[in-house]
């Protein structure tokens, strides 16, 4: 059990991610590869160690994922373009100060082509639609400075229809409220300056109810806690200025107890296997909670706050004040 965030260990865990030659599961996750790089890089940035991965290699890899036929980025070379990986590519290139490598008009065209008549976005031409992809589209267009090309009314209209009786949001119209969707819907609305669509009191109450006695957060009532909700729930609360409604000490302890003290990395809950997905979202949660020594994270874009501020995209979110290092 550790009561501290073991930053050097997590940095080395992320650096070693590409070396798992015996990890059979690794090749099955090629459809997540670009996303995984974004998660790893963002975690390093928040821990103050962006330099731990080679910048040139990373940029080259991102560009090798370019799907010239579709005009977007796939998750891996030769994979079809997808909104999830396209957003990750843009985020990585911005953090690496290499956005000039992107063919912006083509990417904008790809993104806009995925909007459905109902207002939701498909992830790719396969047609899976989900409010997650709506968020990816809105975030990507915003980061590229092309948000004005989006039909905002139509987009906001869809999110509004996803709002449920408990104040939460589902992944499509009619679906159950889920913490992950709370983040994507609220963050998209923040970017579009339409937080008026949120029933703030009810949603934030629902989000505060995600906290279980062990301090961890779950995704919906009567389900298990999971470290990744430390980000999905906290970011939504932060955007709506209600982070105080979560017991910060208990949540911090929970996240820290899910660290692997030998290999580094953070798991979904204490004792389970770590992965880079839970590592970034655990670290992101701690940053929003004001954990000492971490870099400020923008909860709307899940990128370093300074980067977003420099682009003039900062919205009115509020995190807990960062505690001094020896607290």
């Amino acid at each position: 059990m550790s009561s501290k965030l073991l930053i050097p260990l997590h940095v080395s865990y992320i650096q070693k991610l590409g070396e798992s030659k015996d990890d059979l599961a690794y090749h099955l996750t090629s459809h997540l590869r670009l996303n995984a790089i974004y998660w790893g890089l963002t975690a390093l940035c928040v821990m103050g160690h962006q330099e731990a991965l080679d910048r040139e290699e990373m940029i080259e890899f991102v560009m090798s994922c370019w799907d010239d036929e579709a005009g977007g980025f796939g998750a891996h070379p030769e994979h079809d373009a997808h909104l999830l990986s396209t957003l990750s590519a843009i985020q990585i290139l911005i953090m690496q100060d290499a956005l000039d490598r992107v063919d912006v008009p083509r990417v904008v065209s790809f993104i806009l082509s995925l909007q459905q008549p109902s207002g939701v976005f498909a992830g790719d031409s396969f047609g899976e639609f989900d409010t997650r992809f709506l968020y990816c589209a809105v975030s990507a267009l915003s980061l590229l400075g092309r948000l004005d090309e989006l039909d905002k009314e139509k987009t906001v209209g869809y999110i509004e229809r996803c709002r449920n009786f408990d104040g939460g949001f589902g992944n499509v119209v009619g679906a159950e409220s889920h913490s992950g969707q709370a983040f994507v819907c609220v963050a998209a609305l923040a970017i579009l300056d339409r937080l008026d669509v949120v029933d703030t009191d009810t949603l934030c109450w629902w989000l505060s109810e995600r906290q279980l006695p062990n301090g961890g957060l779950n995704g919906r009532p009567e389900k298990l806690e999971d470290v990744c909700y430390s980000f999905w729930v906290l970011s939504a609360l932060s955007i709506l200025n209600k982070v105080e409604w979560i017991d910060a000490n208990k949540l911090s302890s929970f996240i820290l107890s899910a660290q692997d003290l030998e290999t580094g990395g953070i798991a979904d809950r204490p004792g389970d296997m770590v992965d880079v997905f839970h590592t970034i979202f655990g670290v992101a949660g701690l940053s929003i909670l004001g954990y000492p020594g971490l870099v400020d994270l923008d909860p709307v874009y899940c990128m370093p706050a300074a980067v977003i501020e420099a682009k003039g995209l900062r919205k009115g979110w509020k995190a807990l004040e960062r505690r001094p290092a020896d607290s």
Partner: protein
Amino acid sequence: MPSPTGDQISKSLFAERSEWSDVTPLQQYESLVNPLAPIFYTEEYKDATDYFRGIVKSGEKSQRVLELTEAIIRQNPAHYSAWQYRYETLLALDAPLDVELKLMDELAVKYLKTYQVWHHRRLLLAHTRKPAPELEFIARSLGVDAKNYHTWSYRQWLLAYFNDEDDLWRGELDFVDAMLTQDVRNNSAWHHRFFVVWGCGVREGEEDRGRILKRELTYVKQNISLAPNNPSAWNYLRGVLDHNQVLYSIVFPFVRLYTVPFNSERTDIVDLENPPPDKDANLPCPAAIEFLADVYEQDKNKESTLQAVELWMSLANEHDTIRKKYWEHRIREALEATKV
């Protein structure tokens, strides 16, 4: 010709089969020495995906492509390009989609957690237009994983998409009831009930909204009495009252029963309107205290506000301390409102 079973497929590589010798397999793009994206395969997976890239390049849409995509999907159900190409091939061949659905039934049991399994069914259903057997299949899947988000979302899609077939909805209430009998804490089932009863437009036979409201209030109260510390049921109660714009005071006598420790001197008069908790229940129930506070707050007078404040204080200090700051917010807000 039926495709071979998964076991047979994995036994011989496509590279070793003469009937595939006319296809040029294409290797995965190998980026030079990039520690972030090493390429690791089992031999079978590499073989199948090499041949997949080969037929994608040539644009082939034939029966053997179905065999190939099935091989990939069985090894990696998240390979969405394989799913997409399979679907396009099925259409190009005008293949019997009922047969495809049966195959998918088998795969779904093994690979339930991936989204593509459900999306593929959605695409097929849009063509076959036979939703009733699908409801059966979804029910069986939920038997394995009762809270699977994609499964429930798929059921909701199916009902809404084939909405004009009234028969489809007929068994839904019974279905939800069966799921809740299995696990009264299944939030997905409670959400689905709200969707079916209130969310999807009024259907034939359900026009008397007053009767429906009464029925649903009775239902949720009974289920609360079975398991009081069940946030989904309390959320449902709140949702029903809000949706019908009914003041919470209508359930005041019921809620109050759950805000005090068990009263062993209570006589056993059966009050169907207000089913009480049984002696094994964990009382008082924080969700009930919270609800009672909302009842008082809705009265909007100084006295009832103070009663609400007292209840919120008991939550902040004793019954729900983890959300202390939230309850303190409610107290502040209510006191502010009385000053105005």
